[in-house]
């Protein structure tokens, strides 16, 4: 323990040489004036927005050429370069970001410990956000979140517990986004901290891997698994890897892949090793040496070909533009061919059922300008091809940070944090989530790419996981249609194929089958043939497919 006077002396010694940047007063003055003008604009804009909302409430019918049925479409900001904008979230950006198979669910506060971590859900079909019912959890910053196929689990975070003590919280709760019902879950074991942890859903458990608790912070590696069926926690052995941050953490379908990162002592370090956990046996296997440079924070996604790893921060702090795939079954790597993407910051990747979609940012810090790069890698042919990049953000009034790239079954979903900048100051408490969606089109057929999402290697046919169920055979006559590329989430393939098969003869119309409700299909552009994309739901369970007419 040190004395109060020693602490006082050391703190003054450390910061008393710190002086304001020249021009600070001018920057404050300019920002204050600009923000004052913005407030006035917002107030006067309410009336305009009200009128605009009345206009936007009018719906249009699109695709009315016979025999297609009319499709209800919601007006919104126009697409740019094929990318449809996502309107800003109703609350600040948060740490929870999951795709539920129907909606993108995100938390409403990022890092304030003073505000409840309420959730919002974005529906790409309606292009609208909605608020989920208030969380029963106390105010907290940065909890973890996973989607189980039925509920979103939110756990941990830092805040004040019931006795008024501030620290890492161990409690959590789960919400069913369809019913809006929350229930609390058993707290994590004493002494476990969620800080800087990563969470994945294994199909049965929420698996949490934590190494260092933060930069220059304490903490040892710990692994926890929460079983929502039994409402119990169990601790798994650590990998023995050196303590780290910025590692790639991916659920492979059978195990947890942890690779790369930097040490908590030095952000300049790049770690070359990794390990693979089998949560059933609790055993870790060292990952074979990679054929690519050490790196931290690469894009990583599970594909039928293994774990796709691309880009990231290289050994000298540079941004990398290469990658490799790791096959967990053979514990071996395969180097990716060179691609069309330049090195980017903050890369993310998602498997779309055909390809790996990769996106990253180019950041001009001085101008606060962000532009995107994107490309797709075809596993079957082992080739890259360029895809339209999301629109760049060319103003200096907002800083954008890519946070999430996912696949909805039909669209790439790209979500970023947009933080206002006023006078060179980023106003993090006013940040919002927004972004874009993009529908890939098959270059050969001209139709939308399929909605299949292949099982990860070794994955079981868990009815909780999204799985590709194949197709319903069809005969291409005027009166007989079939469904193909059937994808199931939260139900088994037998049921999913039956639901899809029941669409025969509907010609795009709405129908119900068993407990599944199938609203009328959306028409797709085709090369000479008509298609309808269906999204059938029964509670959180979902069946996606195209029907050919």
């Amino acid at each position, binding site marked *: 323990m040190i004395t*109060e006077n020693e602490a*006082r002396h050391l703190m003054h010694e450390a910061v008393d040489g710190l002086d304001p*940047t020249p021009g*600070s007063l001018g920057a404050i003055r300019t920002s204050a004036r600009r923000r004052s003008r913005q407030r006035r604009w917002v107030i006067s804009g309410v009336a305009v927005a009200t009128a605009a909302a009345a206009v936007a409430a009018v719906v249009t019918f699109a695709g009315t050429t016979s025999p297609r049925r009319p499709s209800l479409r919601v007006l919104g900001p126009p697409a740019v370069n094929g990318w449809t904008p996502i309107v800003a979230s109703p609350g600040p950006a948060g740490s929870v970001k999951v795709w539920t198979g129907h909606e993108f669910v995100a938390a409403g506060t990022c890092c304030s*410990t003073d505000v409840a971590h309420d959730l919002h859900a974005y529906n790409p079909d309606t292009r609208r956000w909605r608020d989920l019912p208030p969380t029963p959890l106390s105010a907290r910053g940065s909890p973890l979140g996973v989607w189980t196929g039925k509920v979103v689990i939110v756990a941990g975070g830092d805040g004040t517990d019931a006795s*008024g003590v*501030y620290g890492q919280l161990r409690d959590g709760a789960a919400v069913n986004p369809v019913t809006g019902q929350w229930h609390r879950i058993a707290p994590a074991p004493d002494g476990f901290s969620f800080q800087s942890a990563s969470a994945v859903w294994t199909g049965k458990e929420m698996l949490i891997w934590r190494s260092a608790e933060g930069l220059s*912070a304490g903490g040892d590696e710990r692994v926890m698994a929460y079983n929502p069926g039994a409402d119990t926690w169990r601790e798994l052995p650590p990998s023995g890897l050196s303590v780290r941050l910025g590692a790639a953490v991916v659920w492979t379908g059978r195990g947890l892949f942890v690779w790369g990162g930097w040490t908590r002592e030095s952000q300049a370090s790049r770690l070359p090793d990794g390990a693979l956990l089998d949560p059933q046996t609790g055993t870790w296997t060292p990952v074979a040496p990679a054929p690519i440079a050490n790196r931290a924070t690469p894009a990583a996604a599970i594909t039928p070909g293994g774990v796709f790893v691309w880009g990231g921060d290289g050994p000298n702090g540079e941004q990398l533009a290469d990658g490799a795939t790791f096959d967990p079954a053979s514990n071996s790597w395969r180097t990716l061919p060179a691609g069309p993407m330049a090195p980017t910051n903050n890369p993310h990747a998602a498997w779309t059922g055909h390809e790996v979609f990769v996106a990253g940012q180019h950041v001009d810090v001085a101008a606060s300008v962000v532009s995107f790069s994107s490309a797709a890698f075809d596993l079957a042919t082992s080739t890259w091809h360029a895809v339209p990049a999301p629109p760049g953000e060319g103003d200096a009034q907002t800083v954008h940070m890519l946070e999430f790239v996912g696949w909805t079954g039909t669209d790439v979903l790209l979500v970023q944090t947009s933080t206002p900048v006023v006078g060179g100051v980023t106003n993090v408490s006013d940040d919002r989530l927004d972004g874009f969606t993009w529908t890939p089109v098959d270059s050969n057929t001209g139709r939308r790419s399929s909605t299949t999402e292949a099982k990860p290697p070794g994955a079981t046919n868990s009815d909780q996981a999204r799985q590709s169920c194949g197709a319903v055979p069809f005969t291409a006559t005027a009166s007989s249609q079939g469904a193909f590329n059937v994808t199931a989430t939260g139900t088994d393939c037998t049921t999913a194929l039956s639901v899809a098969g029941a669409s025969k003869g509907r010609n795009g119309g709405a129908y119900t089958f068993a407990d599944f409700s199938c609203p009328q299909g959306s028409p797709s552009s085709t090369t000479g043939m008509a298609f309808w994309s269906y999204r059938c739901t029964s509670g959180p369970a979902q069946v996606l497919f195209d029907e050919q007419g």
Partner: protein
Amino acid sequence: MTLVGGTGVDTDTELADLYHRHYRDLLRLAALLLDDPSACEDVAQEAFIRVLGRLDRIREPELTLAYLRQTVVNLSRSTLRRRLVAMRHDRSQPREHQSPEEAGHAAVQRAAIVLALQKLPRRQREAVVLRFYGDLTEAQTAEAMGVSVGSVKSSTSRGLTALGSHLEALR
């Protein structure tokens, strides 16, 4: 000094007065509270911008400093996590020459006491910094942190103990 806006008093003059009296101290306070001292300028500027926009609602001028201090504490909390992510961007920007201010930030970053403070839980860090760097009373610290005086007492005591251990480990 009149701190009531909209009464004909020159807001620029008010701002300059506030700035010269408090900005430097609040900048240094933020440097001790943050895990990335280079963000202290952002936090201090933002605190001033926010308070300036609310001067007409601050009825007692002597409370302005308390309000500024509380805003710095709140902004430091919300900036912690964002800084971790933002560092990814910063690393890609090579900087050959450091300005004197950047050199000052780097010196703060290297100081053992700053590294030791960063290892403390946030509440203990805030209590120790506000009590012994800010020289606030326990009641003022509690107000700035938004907690009870009892919580300040326990956080300060635990914080000093942990700080000593962390400093020892760094030596």
